[in-house]
Every structure is written in C-alpha cells, then in structure tokens.
C-alpha cells in the first residue's frame, strides 16, 4: 500500500517533469515555426545560474502558492491587520524573530563564526529579558545588529552546492539545499522544544504549538510584501528565480 503511493508520486513527478521538457522543444510536429527562436541567440552568455530541471513542477507550485495566497493567506493577513493593532503586530514579529535567534546561534556556532555567535547570544538574552520574552527589540538600539544564519548557509559554509531551484508550497522560491536546511532548522527547533518541555505533559502543548505555528505563518506572510503575479510581467517567474538567487548571494556577503 505504502510503496504503491510512493510509486504513484514518482510517476506523477516524472510525468510533470517530462511534460515540462516537451514544451522546451522549439517546434513540435504540426506547428508553424515562429519567426525567431532562441537558437539564433546561442552565442550570448546565459544570465541565470540557477539550474531549474523541474521547471514545469515549479511553475505549477508557483501557481498553487498564488491560489493559497489569494484564497487563504492574504485574507487571513488582512483580517489580522484589521483585528490586531500595529504595535502588537510588531510585538508578534519581534517575538518570532527572537525565537529565530536560536537558529542563528546554533548555525553561527556550526560555521565557527565567533563574533556573530556572541552578538546573537547577546541579542537573545537582552530581548528575552529586557525585551519581555522577545516582544520588544531593545538589542538593536543597543547596537547589536540582527544576524540571519540558517542551516542553508551552514551547508554553504561546508561547501555543499545549492542544487536545483525548487518552489516549495507556501514557502515559495528555494533550492534543494535551502529546503533541506529549512527541514533541519525545523527539526532542531522541535528537539529543543521537546527537551525543554515547558508544559510538562499537561496536554496544552499540542494546541499551543499548532496555534504558534499558525501565527508564525501569518506573521511571515504579513511581513513579506511579495505578491505572486503582481508584476503582470509575463516572465515574472524568471525574474523571481534570478532575484532570489541574487538575494541569497548578497546575504552571504554580509
């Protein structure tokens, strides 16, 4: 039963990839050749450095994310904006950003970045105490700049390549490596929560966790101004693919 499901998934994925490949051929049998094709311009350097062998699948996922945004996330975010006053929303953003300091801390440590680790530790301690559990961000005004490290960058520091482009459901533009990094970061967070276990088997934890994950998703979408297909530019997919790899590269320079 289980293996059948896996087979089905593999076949579906293969079909999607292959259908993507078919469309890449310039002219199919029965089609009138266009006046210009890309072959004429093969003497120029390519701009995109992101491999995208699963483009068909990625484009469908891109569209899926648009629909999720349209019918679920954006209405929820707009309700959130109406119901929760701005200072409180900023508090929520600060709270989750403070939780993410833990991720930054352990990844700085894994990359042996001493100074960044200390700054991040300083930020976490300051904001958790003086900043009342992370709702405020006094550390930034003390001159401790927020660093953003995750397991994706740790993998990069270890010399792992990005792998192909991958549009993830809800999370959007990624690479195989960053998707893996996201999973590892999530697992580490889960393990930490487990070992602290602040609710000691009262049963309140599961509901609370679900609620927190939901709120974090809303907060993430609330802070991200990107809207799928909002540019009305027919080649938006490629611009986003290019810019997301560019952004990743610039981040690693900091």
């Amino acid at each position, binding site marked *: 039963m289980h293996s059948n499901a896996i087979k089905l998934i593999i076949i579906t994925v293969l079909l999607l990839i292959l259908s993507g490949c078919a469309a890449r051929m310039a002219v199919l049998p029965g089609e009138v050749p266009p*006046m*210009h094709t890309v072959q004429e311009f093969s003497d120029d350097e390519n701009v995109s450095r992101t491999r995208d062998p699963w483009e068909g699948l990625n484009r469908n996922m891109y569209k899926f994310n648009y629909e999720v945004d349209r019918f679920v996330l954006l209405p929820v975010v707009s309700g959130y904006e109406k119901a929760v006053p701005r200072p409180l929303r900023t508090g929520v953003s600060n709270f989750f950003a403070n939780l993410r300091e833990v991720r930054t801390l352990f990844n700085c440590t894994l990359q042996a970045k001493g100074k960044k680790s200390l700054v991040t530790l300083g930020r976490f301690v300051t904001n958790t105490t003086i900043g009342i559990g992370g709702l405020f961000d006094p550390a930034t005004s003390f001159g401790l700049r927020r660093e953003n490290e995750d397991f994706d960058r740790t993998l990069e520091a270890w010399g792992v390549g990005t792998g192909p482009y991958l549009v993830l459901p809800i999370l959007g533009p990624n690479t195989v490596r960053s998707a893996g990094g996201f999973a590892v970061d999530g697992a580490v967070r889960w393990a930490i929560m487990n070992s602290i276990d602040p609710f000691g088997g009262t049963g309140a934890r599961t509901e609370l966790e679900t609620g927190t994950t939901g709120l974090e998703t809303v907060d993430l979408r609330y802070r991200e101004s990107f809207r799928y297909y909002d540019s009305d530019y027919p080649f938006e997919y490629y611009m986003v693919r290019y810019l997301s790899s560019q952004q990743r590269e610039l981040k690693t320079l900091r």
Partner: protein
Amino acid sequence: MTIFGRILLGLFLLLPACAWGDGTGYGYPIGDSFASSILGTPRSLRPNLPRKAPVTTLVLETDQEKPEIFFCDRGLRYTVAFQHHRAPLVFLIAGTGASSKAPKVVALMENLYHAGFHVIALPSPTFPNFIINASTTHVPGNLSDDAADLYRVMEQIWSQSKGRIEVSDFLLAGYSLGGTEAAFVAKLDEERKIFDFRRVLMLNPAVSLYSSVSQIEGLLDRIPGGPRRIGAFYNRVMAKCTDFYRKGDFVAVDDDFLYAAYQGHLLSQDEAGAVIAVSFRISSSGMIFASDVMTHGGYLVPKNRELKNSDSLDDYFWASLHLSFLDYFNEYFVPYFQSRHPGLTEEELLEALSLKSIEGYLDSSAKIEVITNEDDFILPPGELDYLRRVFGPRLKVYPRGGHLGNLEYRENIAFLIDRLRSSTW
C-alpha cells in the same frame, strides 16, 4: 607638480562645482544624463509629504478572452488616489512598459494628491496587462489607436468612479511615451468632449516614437560585442556591483548603495547608458511576448501553440530580450498594420508615430504644455528645437535631469503642480 598638472587639477575640482552652480540657479545636483536617469532625485531633495496618500489599485473587468498562461489576469489594473472633497481630477499615463503603480507613477500620485487633486493612473498601452485587456488590436505602438484605447478606458473608469468622488474639472498628464500619448488623447478629447481637459502636461515626451527608441537602442552599440551580447554585459555589470557591495559596508542594495556606486565611478558612461537600454529591453520583451500570444502572431511562439501554465517560457524570454524594439517594429508591427490597411507605406506609418502628425493641433492648443530637460537622451538632435518651435512659451526646459531623473526634484514638482492649477500659461 607642473603648471599643467595644477591647471588640470583645478579644472577637475571645478567640474562638480560647475554642475551645481551653472548660473541657471537650478539646484538638481546630478549633471550626467545617464546617471540622473538611473538615480533619480536624492530623497532629501524631494518634497516633504506629510503622510502617505491613499493609493489603491483597482480592476476594470473586461470581457477579453484570455489564453491559459494569463490565467491570473483579472482585468485592467489601474491605480487611484481620491480626495474626500470636490477637487480636480488628473488622469495620469505611465511611460513605456510601466504599470499604474510603477514607482514614478506613485511618486507623482502622492505629490498630486497632497496638492489637492484626485488622481487616476493608467498603465502604459505597452504594458502587458493593457495589451491583454484594453488594446483593440493587441499590437501596441500605434499612437492614435493607443490613444483611442486609453480614452475608452478613461470613460469606463470614470463611469465607475463617478459616484465615489466629486470632480470640478479634468486634467491630463503623462510621462515619457505616456506624455506623447497624452497629446493624442487630448486631441481625441477635442472631438469627443467627454472630459474637456482644462490642461494637458507632457513630461519628458518622445517627439517621434521611432527615433526615441532608436536613441535608446543605440546605447547598446557601445558595449563589447554589441546588442547580441547583452547577457555577457549584464553579468559583467552585476559582478562589478557585487564586488563593490562586498568591499563596502552596505546594509542593502538601496539608494545609498547606488549613490555610492555613482560617486565611486563604478560604471563608465557607456555602461550606464547600456544599463538603461537593458532595462528598456526587459520591459519591451514583456510587451512583444504578450502581443505575440494575444494575436497568435507567430513571432516568437508558434502560431498554433496554446501555452499552458507549466510550459517553460525561458526560450521566449531569452529570444525577446535579444530582439530590439526596432525589430519588433520592422518585422511585426509594420506588417501587421499593412495587412489591415493595404497600401500603407512604412513612411506613412512612421509619420503617424510622431507628434509631427498632429502638429497643427499642438501648435494651436494653448492648454497643452511640455516639460523636459536639455540633456534628455531620448530626444535626438533637433527634436528639442522642434519642441521649442511648436510649443514656444508652453515649453519648459531644465538644464539637466536626463530622462525623468529630476521628476521628483522639489522645484520640478512645484512647477508641475503650479502648471496644473493655473488656467493660463
């Protein structure tokens, strides 16, 4: 140091000073026409606006049938900022390839709103969303056709907005190609009289569409290998920028970064020009593709292929980036209009794409005014003189600012608003 060295150094030190105080009393600081067009106006030299204007994007639903790849297109998107009281309404037309919420449009809207106007901004007829929804032919560039489409859309939007706002009278403004189109829309309005525009402002307009496009496309001839090697050029510029970013202590790629790059002479004059031309290609590629798909023109996409959402458009993107607007014009635009109007020659068509075709109207209509810059590179030699001849005192020329670089400069905004408010020149 030799005496020549001293003189050279003296001249060099004087150069920036010349650019600032050239006796005209005009304080826009960037003297290089490409740099000003890229950088725009430094934030500190823009007007101080008290708060954000209520800028909202709305959709005008059209019954246009859309191919599957434009599935998310739900109609023509236009942007408004409305007052709560009776006020004049400005229709604003965006420049080549721009949407109704392009940064320049929004900047103008914010300023006009704070000056007390209602504003309705429309995308350029060369913007894919307009080509798909509002263009009768789906082939943009024919100024009188595009003006007719714009006018129809204005009427439809106006009938939608009527109940929501109180309007005292109507004004029209457009920048770049939108400025040229504004003149054609104004002429149409003289016949139709729906709005009876009190004043029409053309900001950095093109005189002839073809010659302006040739000016911009020509900027690519100066890169190694010419226009065929724009990919290699782009990679080189990006590598330079990344390197510059790495060495400096920048927080993000923002205005500060761009200014620092400008002051550090990161790009040569030729490179800065080519960057402008590449960004022009990026918008024109969207235009060409959208038009080709809508007309089944067989230019890039096989005539009888129905594109699906999962289909890769990469090859079309790459091919269209390598096609110039002039290719589009000669290979696609001209044959299209010749097939619709047998006997039409290329010269006649070219003439129709120029202000010269409505010169008599422009010459006699006191409500139309032009604002441009001495160093606007979309005007080839002679065209500024042409504008001077036709518009006379209704033309304002700033000594520098490139193409729209000084649009948001305080003095420019103040002048523009003053012109829209006034009833006479």
